[in-house]
Structures are given as C-alpha cells and as structure tokens.
C-alpha cells in the first residue's frame, strides 16, 4: 500500500476526517500452553508484551484476539479480564493473536492536535516572514505530507517514502473536500465529516477511497505476473488502454488482477 492514511485537521487543530489504509499489519497467531512464556502487562487499556520476544511476536505487540475472538481493550469478548483469563491454567491450550496495536480514535485526535501545534511552531521558527509551515516530515518508514490551505485547513497524508505525486493528491483531496463536504448545506464548518459523505461520492468515476488506497502494482513500476513460463517468472507488461486494476499477462494471456 502506498498511502497509509489521510488526516484532515481544521483551523482549531481538531481532527475532522481520518482514513486508514487496510494493509494488514504484522500479526502472529500462536497456540500456547500453560505457563505462558511471554510476560504480559497492562498499559493504556491494552495488554502488551513486556518481555519474551519469539516467532514474530515482539515486545510492544498487543493482544488482538484470544481463540479467534477479538479482545476489547483489556477485556475478552466475553467480558472477562485478559490477564486473569490467561493466568488460569484451566483455559489452556489457548490461541492468542499478537500484533502492532492500532491507534484508537482518541489517540488520533490527540496526534492531530499535536501536529497542529508543531505546525504552528514550525511557522514561527522560520527566519523569513510568511513561511508555509511543515510541508514534509520524512522518516525511514513513511513520509508525511502536509498541505495547509489559505483558510487554515490542513490536509495530511502519510505515504510510502518512495511514493511520488502526493502534492497533486493533496490538491485533489482539497477539491473533493470543497465539493462534497462544503457544498452540503447541512454540514457545519469545522465539524467532523461523516465518512458516508466521502465514500458515497463519485469523482469522475472513482470514489475517494479506492482512488487513494487501491494502488495497482503497475503504478509503482513493472510487476511480475504470477504465472510461470519455463520455470521462470515472466515480466508482464501493462496494456495501457485497459482500465486498471486488470491487466493482461503477456505470457499466459490471462487477466490478472493485482
């Protein structure tokens, strides 16, 4: 996935829209017998691994599901406390799924307002008058692009560091925002945008969500078809006249959805 998430922050620093890509994060599900050789602790309403890294389960991963049923914070789906449940030898063998914890909506709100404050600090630190503020924040795993409109709304996109064309994406999101959120007479300015307003709308034949997240592999460069020809993967070339995401494999002549 090239785009990880989109945040829209209003003038006061409040988050009014947020969208995450659905790329599966690193998750590991294992069956355990008593006693559990991982040390679990409760932190921030979540049960995290404190010690005992093995097999894809790392320190900091949270308990996501027990026996296939998603946990609800520190309680299991049945309402029992997770730590208590896992301390009882009668419940074993148990299958637990660990993974990187997702951000809750409160945490996202907090992060958005913190970014808003950092943005303001960034503008003030500038030696020249009239700075544009933070435009790009780069790390090794993602790049954060921010575009502030003249009215003070900020559009923030987290994307793959190698992904190009985010500037035009930000402008496009601004256009879509002005079209579908603002022109709704019942939408109050600076208030959270309901996801239905965005999902249901067509923008020249595409909806916002797929346009952002369904990045066909050919968009990032030549891709390999899954067919084998002569025990070797062949390069598939895209038929440019076709509508994505379908492409014709030159070797096996089959429609590939990638």
């Amino acid at each position, binding site marked *: 996935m090239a785009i990880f998430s989109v945040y829209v922050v209003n003038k006061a620093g409040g988050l009014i829209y947020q969208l995450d890509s659905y790329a599966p994060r690193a998750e590991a599900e294992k069956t355990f017998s008593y006693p559990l050789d991982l040390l679990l602790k409760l932190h921030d309403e979540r049960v995290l691994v404190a010690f005992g890294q093995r097999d894809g389960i790392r320190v900091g991963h949270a308990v996501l599901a027990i026996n296939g049923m998603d946990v609800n914070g520190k309680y299991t789906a049945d309402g029992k406390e997770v730590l208590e449940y896992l301390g009882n030898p009668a419940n074993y063998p148990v299958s637990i799924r660990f993974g990187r914890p997702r951000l809750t909506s409160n945490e996202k709100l907090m992060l958005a307002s913190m970014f808003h404050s950092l943005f303001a600090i960034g503008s003030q630190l500038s030696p020249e008058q*009239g700075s544009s503020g933070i435009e790009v924040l780069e790390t090794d795993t993602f790049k954060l692009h921010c575009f502030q*409109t*003249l*009215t*003070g*709304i900020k559009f923030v996109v987290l994307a793959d560091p190698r992904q190009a*064309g985010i500037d*035009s994406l930000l*402008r*496009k999101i*601004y*256009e879509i*925002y*002005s*079209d579908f959120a*603002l*022109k709704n007479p019942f939408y109050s*300015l600076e208030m959270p945008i309901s996801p239905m307003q965005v999902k249901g709308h067509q923008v*020249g034949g595409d909806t916002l969500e797929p346009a952002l997240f369904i990045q066909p592999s050919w968009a990032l460069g030549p891709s390999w078809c899954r067919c084998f020809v002569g025990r070797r993967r062949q390069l598939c070339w895209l038929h*440019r*006249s*076709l*509508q*994505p995401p379908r492409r014709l494999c030159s070797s096996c002549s089959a429609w590939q959805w990638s």
Partner: protein
Amino acid sequence: MSRPAHRRPEYHKINKDLFVLTYGALVAQLCKDYEKDEDVNKYLDKMGHGIGTRLVEDFLARSCVRRCHSYSEIIDIIAQVAFKMYLGITPSVACNNSSRNEFSLILDKNPLVEFVEELPAGRTSLCYCNLLCGIIRGALEMVHLDADVAFLQDRLKGDSVTEIGITFLKKPDEKKYRRKK
C-alpha cells in the same frame, strides 16, 4: 495512460435562467416575509455570508491562487478570477481611498438582474444583489480579512452603473493573542 493523471473538474452547466429565476424567487419571497427593506438586505447578506465561507474553499481549490501580499492584489483576483469563474463577468476595479483600503468593483453587466425591470414600489432601498456582498464578506473572513462590503451604486435604483464598495478593516485577530493580565 488509460486515465489522465490530472483532469480538470467537469463543470456541470445548468441553465442560467434557472439560476437567475431561483434568485429572483428568493428575493421575492424575502420581500413577502419582511416588510422593512433593511431586514431583507440583512438576511440576504447573512445568507451570502454562509455561502461565501464555503465557496471560498472551492474557489481556492480550483483556481490555485497564491498568497496575496496587498489589498489591491486581492481585489484584482476577486474581480478577474472569482467573478469570472462564478458569474462569467469581469468587473473593473477602482481604488477610492488613497490609503489603499477602499476599493470598488464596477459591474457593467449583472446577470442576476437580467429579468428585473425595476424595484417594486415602496422598496426603494432594497439591495437586490446583496447576496453578492455577503458572499464577498464571508469569503474574505475565511482568509482572515475583515471587510465591509456594500452597494455604492445600483442600476436598479437609477444610477448609471452598479458599484460594489469593499473597505478593508483592521484585522480583528490581533486582539485574540493579547495576554489577559
């Protein structure tokens, strides 16, 4: 590419008459609802303000204008880009005050009053296009500029041209950041 990388948004065209007649019906209904001209003018301005706060984002998104550095630049953009984009007309700009805070837009053609012969009797101080004043005021407010927008001359009232006067006021934001002792 099967899809162009950047496509201009399609403007859905509607019949101009429908728009002009809708606006006329709106003003006529307001006249029926309120007896005083000042009330009608006030509500038209308020409605325009609500429209302006939203329309400015659409304008900024589609026109890609840069940050302006002076009031005259702003007025030029309003006249040449905004009016052209939304009403299809290009009013001319005049600067009234030497301290560069008062400007006026002179409209020689106003599509909104196409079907209006004259103001009804007893409605001599009605500003028929006051919605436009509200839109400009609301739009400027969203980019943190306080302005007073009013009709200085109106063809419907017997003047030769229609003139909208825009006066930029001192920015109200400065008060917010003063510390309370």
